[in-house]
């Protein structure tokens, strides 16, 4: 249990981001386009710098205003999700570099790792990057100060009524 202050986090933005990462990376793999994988890495990098999900602008400017996706606002910590994107950005950058340097197996392996983790988050509700964040927080590392919302398994999507 924790008395920390949680924030309103719209999980639909996160899901949109994950679905774009998955789709574009699979497309990059099928069409053998390392540049597309690098583009995904770039968007994730920009998102990390701006502290927002990289492809979240698609949700905010198209999906939400047209009612194609509904908000899924939960009381949660945004920091672990940001950390998770940074982790994804690092893997995607490493994967893209490996592809441009000719290490195709390593490169696409890293890209598929990101696809798998994003899919686990989007369809299974488990954020591995967030779990890593909460695990690091146990060691009181600077910048890792948040605890999982009460009653929520570290990395799992919070259950709304447990954290209000």
């Amino acid at each position: 249990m924790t008395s920390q202050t949680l924030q309103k986090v719209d999980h639909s933005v996160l899901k949109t981001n994950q679905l774009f990462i998955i789709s574009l990376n699979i497309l990059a793999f099928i069409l053998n386009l390392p540049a597309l994988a690098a583009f995904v890495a770039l968007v994730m990098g920009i998102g990390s710098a701006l502290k927002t999900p990289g492809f979240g602008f698609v949700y905010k400017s198209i999906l939400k205003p047209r009612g194609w996706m509904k908000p899924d606002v939960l009381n949660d910590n945004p920091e672990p999700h940001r950390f998770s994107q940074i982790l994804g950005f690092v893997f995607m950058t490493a994967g893209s570099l490996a592809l441009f340097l000719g290490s195709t197996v390593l490169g696409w392996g890293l890209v598929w790792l990101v696809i798998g983790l994003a899919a686990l988050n989007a369809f299974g509700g488990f954020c591995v990057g967030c779990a890593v964040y909460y695990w690091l927080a146990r060691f009181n590392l600077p910048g890792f100060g948040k605890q999982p919302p009460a009653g929520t398994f570290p990395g799992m999507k919070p259950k709304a009524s447990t954290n209000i």
Partner: protein
Amino acid sequence: MNSDIFLRLGLALCIIGLGLFVYWRINQRLLLNAQNNALSLFNTLPNKPVIVYFTTSDYAPCKTIQRPALHQLSGLMGDKLHVIEIDAAQQPELAKQWGVLSVPTTFLLDARGEARYVNNGVARVEKLMEQLQTL
């Protein structure tokens, strides 16, 4: 060039298939968990299909989609269906026993109390009805 794309497409489908297989195995495990815990919910078997619905009181998709869907289904099925609603936040131990990690999660048990289906996430009326018809 084309053959390369098809090869990659095939590989991508294999990887996605592997992911789906893992997901299916996890669901099988959840059903086994449900099977082991189902009988503790009843004093006597209800002799009709049962939906065990894990929810929380104010999670939006539960309130706006899943609960109305179950009400509609109860209305359609009448006394041929028994719905048990469990608040996962109020009864975390029970949710843990059943292996529930997110809400809404619905388990469908047949008249003998055997767990036959599990739906992770929102399950609409049509889907639930389809599953009930196979019980």
